């Protein structure tokens, strides 16, 4: 079973990583393992597995994305560890690398699993690993962030489990007891015959459970702190990957509900729930971004916004909107990981990558320190706003236009929120890049990671604007089935 390899390899490798090696060796091993996993995620396209772990197209695509982002993050991580090694003990670094691998493996499990129980277990594993990772720096604020993450994440996990059991219960009339009632493919095939009322109840719990992982408002409480306090490369994984798994899980359950609703099975339409949470996320972010003085917290809020946009897209429904939402997830993952890599470089140029060194006032005037890093980071920031030539323009265009057509009432808050967020991000752009640099700033060398950032951005633009029609039609067919 090839499909088990990319999942088990990192999970098993976590043990030796957690017990052996210096930080530097750990980072290199981490990168090597991740490269292997990336290769495997590509290989899996030809062997999507069977039974409990059987990847569908969606899982495969996001699996490859996870592998790629994991790889670039791990590469950037080598440089990060080199600079940050003295800050933590060797044991902590070992735990840190082990947790990176656990997160990677659990995320892949979550994406590839066909079983709703496995999906849940995967997310739980990822949460625990990430909690440990976040609290590693052991400063009071890091502990606090980890504690928040644990409490809110734990509650979310509990709610998701309840939802999962309710889904199983709702599937009883159609599928009877046993593994069949927990398999996504079986559930989606028999969605119409499930108990609609129970399914709706289940969806509410799933939404609030996995919504906590996806950091939708009002379940977002853990995210900004976790972003700001944990080690940066781990934050990258958090921002892109765990959010993605949670959102895809929500998408899959939403599909069950929608199918049941369309077939007249007694379920409520999932749209209003998702739209409400999504719009709340976007609007709260819109008003929270301006006052942020710490760059990582700032981009943490931006992640909440992106989750909200995706949730709105899923809530709007229809093949195009879901396509837009998925495209948005892919692009935003690429941008965010590039952004955090750039942020590490920027902080390094200013002396330290420790948490607390990411204030905008500390980073400002990057252009005077290093032109390429500045443009890389600035490009990522600009890309987040959704103005062309950023790829997010395409996805946001699709989402907004679909919202207008399918849920007109939502378009006003959506447009307002997107607008305010974009303005808030652009407001930071000027000072960060071209503002007066703090005194005693020395121009720094151009690190290799800048190329990685550029690569991310190039891929992002290419995916959005140069998608071959064949691929686009294939994806639209996929989202049509998911609708």
């Amino acid at each position, binding site marked *: 079973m090839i499909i088990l390899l990319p999942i088990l390899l990192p999970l098993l490798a976590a043990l030796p990583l957690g017990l052996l090696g210096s930080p530097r060796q750990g980072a290199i091993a981490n990168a090597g393992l991740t490269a292997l996993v990336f290769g495997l995620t590509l290989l899996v396209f030809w062997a999507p597995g069977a039974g409990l772990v059987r990847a569908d197209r969606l899982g495969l695509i996001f699996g490859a994305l996870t592998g790629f982002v994991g790889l670039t993050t791990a590469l950037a991580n080598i440089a990060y560890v080199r600079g940050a090694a003295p800050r933590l003990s060797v044991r902590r670094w070992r735990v840190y690398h082990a947790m990176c691998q656990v997160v990677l493996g659990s995320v892949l499990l979550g994406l590839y699993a066909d079983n709703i129980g496995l999906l849940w277990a995967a997310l739980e594993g990822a949460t625990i690993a990430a909690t440990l990772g976040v609290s590693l720096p052991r400063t009071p604020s890091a502990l606090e962030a980890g*504690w*928040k993450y644990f*409490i*809110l994440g734990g*509650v979310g996990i509990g709610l998701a489990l309840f939802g999962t059991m309710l889904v199983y219960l709702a599937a009883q009339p159609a599928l009877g007891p046993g593994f069949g009632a927990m398999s996504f493919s079986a559930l989606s095939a028999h969605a119409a015959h499930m108990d609609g*009322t129970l399914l*709706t*109840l289940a969806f*509410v*719990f799933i*939404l*609030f459970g996995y919504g906590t992982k996806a950091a939708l408002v*009002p*379940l977002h*409480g*853990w995210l900004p702190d976790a972003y700001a306090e944990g080690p940066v490369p781990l934050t990258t994984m958090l921002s892109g990957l765990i959010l993605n798994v949670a959102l895809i899980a929500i998408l899959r359950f939403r599909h069950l509900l929608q199918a049941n609703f369309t077939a007249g099975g007694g379920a*409520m339409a999932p749209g209003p*729930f998702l739209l409400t*949470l999504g719009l709340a996320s976007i609007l*709260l972010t819109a*008003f*929270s971004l301006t*006052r942020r003085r710490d760059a990582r917290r700032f981009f943490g809020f931006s992640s909440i916004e992106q989750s909200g946009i995706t949730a709105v897209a899923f809530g709007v429904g229809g093949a195009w909107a879901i*396509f837009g939402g998925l495209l948005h997830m892919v692009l935003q993952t690429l941008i965010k990981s590039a952004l955090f890599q750039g942020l590490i470089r920027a902080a390094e140029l200013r002396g330290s990558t420790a948490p607390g060194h990411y204030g905008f006032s500390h980073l400002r005037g990057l252009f005077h320190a290093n032109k390429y890093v500045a443009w890389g980071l600035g490009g990522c920031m600009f890309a987040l*706003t959704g*103005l*062309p*030539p950023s790829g997010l*323009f*395409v996805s946001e*265009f*699709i989402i*907004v*236009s679909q919202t*207008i*057509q399918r849920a007109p009432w939502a*378009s006003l808050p959506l*447009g*307002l929120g*997107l*607008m*305010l967020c*974009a*303005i808030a991000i*652009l*407001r930071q*752009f*000027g*000072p960060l890049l*071209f503002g007066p640099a703090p005194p005693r700033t020395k121009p720094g060398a151009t690190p290799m990671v800048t190329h990685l950032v550029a690569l991310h951005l190039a891929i992002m633009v290419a995916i*959005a*604007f*140069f*998608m*071959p*029609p064949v*691929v*686009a039609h294939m*994806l*639209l067919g996929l989202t049509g089935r998911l609708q």
Partner: protein
Amino acid sequence: MVGLPGQGMHLRLDALSALFLIILLPQTIAAALSGMRGSLTFWVFVAGMVVALLGADAFTLIFGFELMSAASWLLVLRGDAKPASLYAGIAVFSAACLIPALFLPAGALAFMLILLGTGAKAGLAPLHSWLPRAHPAPPAGVSALMSGGMIKVALYVLIRYGFIVLGAKAAPWWGMVLIVAGAASVLIGSLRAMLETELKTLLACSTVEHAGLIAVGLGVALRAKAMGDPALAALGLQAALLCVVAHALFKPLLFIGAGEVKHATGTSGLNWLGGLLRGMPRLSGLMLLGAVGMAALPLGPGFAPEFLLLHAVIAAAATGGILAHLAFTALLAVLGVSAALALGAAVRLVGIGFLGRPRTLQAAAAEDARPGPLAGMALLAGLCVPVALWPGLVLWGMNPVIRLLVPGASPAPLAYAPLILVLLGGLVALAAGFVLHRFGVRGTREVPAWMGGFGRPPAWLPFGDPMTQPSASGFAAPVARAIGAGLLAPGGMDPGQAWVLAPLQRLYLRIVRLAERIRRATIRERLAFVFMGLVLALLVLGLGEGG
């Protein structure tokens, strides 16, 4: 395949987009000559405008429009970070209005959104106050293209949607809304142009005025078209489109010139200039020509559009009920006041900046402009000449556009014939020249200025005491006292800033404070948010399914 996944981009070239592309060309060349050739962002900016003009589907249109906004934002940011955020806000706001509008069913809501989106970008009141702050920020070439080209692209979108896409559903009151917005911009723009002392800000205010003039013309045409009066619609369109063409020539000219003034003297504040005509004769001559266009004086490029516009408004006053009649009468008064204010602004620009004595040493030592910008300005000035002297020809060239916008219209010939005026003027000049030559004493003698009988300035002030000269702000003081006090917000602030943007900003801050309170919640309170959300959802569920 480039563009929206699975759909791509579609381009189209018709008479309307061709017209706007043509007016884009000379100013792009001029801006490139003025020193923007090497800037990638500048070319992206131009490309955005071209794509927006050529776009045949909503995606391409918005893509080009926003690319243009984004690139120009970056250019503004590099010039001056302060107005950049405001500019970005307006750019995103127009997208936020336009994208929904393109997908709404044709109707009043769609048109109003289009009007908001394009009006914000084109600097129509009440969303104009950003323009005088943002347009002067980037290098002169970009300012030129922003004023001459970018607002035209916004108006192009307005025309395309108002007349073609939503044309079938148009109602007369759409035109009235456009006219009101235009009239307000005309009045505020011209008044502020009269009061501003910074050269580029002054020009940007004048841009607001011209955008308003174009909007008034379009409004008259839209109203007439909806009322089934193609002749009047054609007249209004002629006025608007001719204004588009003329403004696209003389405003970039003026902006590039202003940039050169700044380059030569280190300042573009009128109160620090003066007497530039001596040091920069060629630049000053070209600026004078541009100022004639800006002031809408006869034989200048700006007069024919103004002429057509006034005629269109007068003709429109004869249609509709008593309210419309009153409105158009008031509109004429507004246009009259503004025309005179624009004349005053142009006169002040020339009279304070280029005539008189230098007010600073930099102004006294200014050397003529660099050849590149000068060549660009000369190109624009050369193109101004046919527009000024033979506007009929330009209007003839526009006929396909007008027929495209108002099917069945037959544009009337122009009643204003500058060539005849030139001929008459020539005859008068001949006669006067003959009299002076035959009977008069020739020759002039250079003497110290009389200065109302005051004593000569000391030797260390070769140009006299600058403080004795009328200043730019002093020149505008009577107007500021007579009109400004009534039309502008307290403190001479722009009403759009004081009564639209500032309250919005306060509202925003209030909500931000609320959001901060949510952000500062303790863990327990955050948990309570989750819990409340869940309970609320369950309640909705229970009530929804139970009831």
